[in-house]
C-alpha cells in the first residue's frame, strides 16, 4: 500500500474502534458482535452505531441482560467455529459473567489437555471520571490480569483502538479488551491505512532519561501530559503497557535500567494490584538499577464516589504524578 498518497484521517477512539469491528465483520464471515444494546441502540457508548444497518441482526446481536448467558454463549460459539466479539457494557457488569470468564474461558483449553481452544474476544468499558459512581467506574482489568488462560489488552491510543481487535481475533485464545470510558472522545489523526497492531509488546510513548512512568489505558494521557516535569528539568519516559497479560516485563526492565527510577500510574486500587505486580517485577529484575524506591500513583481505596470533587480526589491526576516524581527526584518544594 502506498502510504505517501493517503492523508491521515481526523478521527476519534470511538470511531477507530467502530472501524476495527467493521473491518473484522467485512473480512471474516465467522465474526459477529453480541451484547446489550449493541444493535438498535447503537451501543451504550455508540461504538457500534450503524453496524446493525450494515450487517443485520444475525451478526449484530442484541442480547437480553444476561451477562453470564451471552458471555458463555460467546465461549460456546467460539468452540463451535465462530469468532465472536462479545461486548459487556461496563467492567462492573462483567462480574455477572465471571463464572464463564474464569471457570470456562480461561480453563477449557487446559482442562481438555489442549483439545479445545476458545478464539473469543470480549470488549468492555472500564474506568472512572464520568461521575458514574461505584457500580460503573471501577478499573478491574488488573484483577483479570491475575488469571492465566486469558489475555488482557488496554488500548490507550487511536492506533491501538483501531488495530488491537483484529490481532485479538486472530489469537486462538480468549482476549479481553478494556476500553477506558474517557477515551471514546479522544481525537487525533490516524493513517488512512491503519490496521492490525501487535498485542504482545509494551510501547515507549515518550522517551526520557530520568524516570520511567509506567502506565496503560486511561492514565496514559495523564502521564504524557505531565509537562511540568520538563519545566522542572525532569526528562520522563512514558511506557504504555498496552497488554496487562502477558506483561511485557522486558520493556519495563529495559526502561527502568536506563532511567533508574520507576513510578507506576494505575487507576486501579493499589492493594493486590497490577501496579503491585509491576513493582514486584522491577524488584526481582532491576533492584540494583534503582536509585529510589518504586512509587505508585493509584486510585484511593474507596468505591468510586459520585460527587465530582470526591471522584477527582480519588483518581490519579497529572498533578499527583508530577508531585510524586518531583519528590522522588529530590525536589521538596
Amino acid at each position, binding site marked *: 500500500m502506498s502510504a505517501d498518497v493517503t492523508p491521515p484521517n481526523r478521527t476519534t477512539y470511538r470511531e477507530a474502534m467502530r472501524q476495527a469491528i467493521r473491518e473484522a465483520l467485512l473480512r471474516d464471515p465467522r465474526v459477529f458482535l453480541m451484547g446489550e444494546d449493541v444493535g438498535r441502540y447503537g451501543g451504550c457508548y455508540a461504538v457500534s452505531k450503524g453496524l446493525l444497518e450494515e450487517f443485520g441482526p*444475525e451478526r449484530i446481536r442484541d442480547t437480553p441482560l444476561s451477562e453470564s448467558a451471552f458471555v458463555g454463549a460467546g465461549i460456546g460459539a467460539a468452540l463451535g467455529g465462530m469468532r465472536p466479539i462479545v461486548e459487556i457494557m461496563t467492567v462492573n457488569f462483567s462480574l455477572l459473567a465471571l463464572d464463564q470468564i474464569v471457570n470456562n474461558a480461561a480453563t477449557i483449553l487446559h482442562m481438555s489437555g489442549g*483439545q479445545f481452544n476458545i478464539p473469543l474476544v470480549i470488549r468492555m468499558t472500564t474506568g472512572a471520571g464520568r461521575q458514574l459512581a461505584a457500580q460503573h467506574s471501577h478499573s478491574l482489568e488488573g484483577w483479570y490480569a491475575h488469571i492465566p488462560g486469558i489475555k488482557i489488552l488496554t488500548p490507550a491510543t487511536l492506533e491501538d483502538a483501531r488495530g488491537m481487535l483484529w490481532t485479538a481475533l486472530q489469537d486462538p485464545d480468549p482476549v479481553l479488551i478494556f476500553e477506558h470510558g474517557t477515551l471514546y472522545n479522544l481525537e487525533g489523526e490516524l493513517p488512512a491505512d491503519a490496521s492490525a497492531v501487535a498485542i504482545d509488546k509494551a510501547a515507549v510513548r515518550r522517551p526520557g532519561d530520568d524516570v520511567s512512568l509506567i502506565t496503560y489505558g486511561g492514565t496514559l494521557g495523564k502521564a504524557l501530559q505531565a509537562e511540568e516535569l520538563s519545566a522542572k528539568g525532569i526528562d520522563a519516559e512514558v511506557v504504555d503497557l498496552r497488554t496487562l497479560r502477558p506483561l511485557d516485563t522486558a520493556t519495563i526492565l529495559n526502561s527502568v535500567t536506563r532511567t533508574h527510577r520507576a513510578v507506576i500510574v494505575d487507576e486501579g486500587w493499589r492493594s493486590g494490584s497490577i501496579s503491585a505486580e509491576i513493582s514486584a517485577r522491577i524488584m526481582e529484575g532491576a533492584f540494583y538499577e534503582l536509585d529510589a524506591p518504586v512509587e505508585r500513583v493509584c486510585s484511593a481505596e474507596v468505591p468510586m464516589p459520585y460527587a465530582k470533587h470526591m471522584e477527582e480526589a480519588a483518581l490519579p491526576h497529572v498533578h499527583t504524578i508530577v508531585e510524586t516524581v518531583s519528590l522522588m527526584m529530590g525536589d521538596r518544594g
Partner: protein
Amino acid sequence: MALETDLTQPALERDRALARLREMLRIRRFEEKCAELYSAAKIRGFLHLYIGEEAVAVGALSALEADDAIVATYREHGHALARGVSAASIMAEMFGKREGCSHGRGGSMHLFDATARFYGGNAIVGGGLPLAVGLALADKMQGHARVTACFFGEGAVAEGEFHESMNLAALWKLPVVFFCENNLYAMGTALKRSESEVDLSLKAASYEIPAWPVDGMDVIACEDAARRAVAAVRGGAGPYFIEFRTYRFRAHSMYDPQLYRSKQEVEQWKTRDPIATFQARLSESALLSEADLKAIEDDVAQEIAKSVEFAEAGTLEPVEDLTRFVYSERTPS
C-alpha cells in the same frame, strides 16, 4: 409400558435392547471398578458415580448423531462412555496419565474428547448451559443441522445461568436440547428443600420451551423421549427440555456419609434399578438369554480389565510440561 409398544419388530428391537443393556452394564461395571480403584488410591480427587442413573445417558445419547455436541457435568463418566469416548482413555484420565482423554489435566470431573464432540465435564453447577447455548448458536449461524445436548442436574435449576440460558435458547430458537437429570438431591439438598416449584418442566415451559418429565429408570422411555426432542430440535423447532426422573444409588462423592436421606429410601429406589428391571423385562420377553447376558458381562469385564491395564501402563506427563495448555500452541486459523 413404553417397552411393549416399542418392541414391535423383535429382530431389530432385540439388537437395540441388547445394545442398551450392554451400554448400561458397561457404565455400571466401569464405575464399580472406579470405586474399587479409588479405595486403592489409584484414583484421587473427587469421584462422582452415576450408578443408578445409567438409563438416562444411555437412552438420551442413543438419540444423537455422531456430529452432535455434548456438554455434561462432573458426574459424566456414563455420558463419556455412552458417547464412545474409550473406557481406556477415561480410566487413564482418572489415573492422571497423559494417555487420558484430557491428558491428565482434567480428571474424573473434566472428561473431554474433541473427536466425540464431547465438551466436557463442567464442575460448576449450571456453568455448562451457556456454553451449550453458544455451541448451538454457532451451528445455527453456520447452517449445520446439528444438535447440542446439554446435561445438568436438577440442582442447576436454582442457578441464574439456568434461567438465562433457557431464555436465550428459546428467544433465538437455538438447536439445543436440555437434558435435566433429576436425581432429587443437589449434593445433600433435596429438591423440595430448595425449590418453591418442584415441577421442573414448568420452569422450562415458562420460557416457551416444550418440556415434559420422563421415567429416568427406563432406558427405552428415555431414548424415545430424547428421540422425539432431538428430532424436533434438529428440525428447527428451537430448544426442548426433558426432565429425567432418576436416582443416585451411591453417595454424592466418595466423601459423603449420606446423612440427608434414609437407607429405606435408597433401598426403595434400588428396586427400580434401571439395569435389573430392564434385564428382567428382556428375559421375560425372551429377548435375553442367560448366554446373552453372560456374553455381555464377559465382554464388558474384559474391556474394563483392559482399560485398567492401559491406565496402569500409561505415562506421567513430565513436570517440565506443567505450563502447557494455558495458551494455545498451534497457530491460529
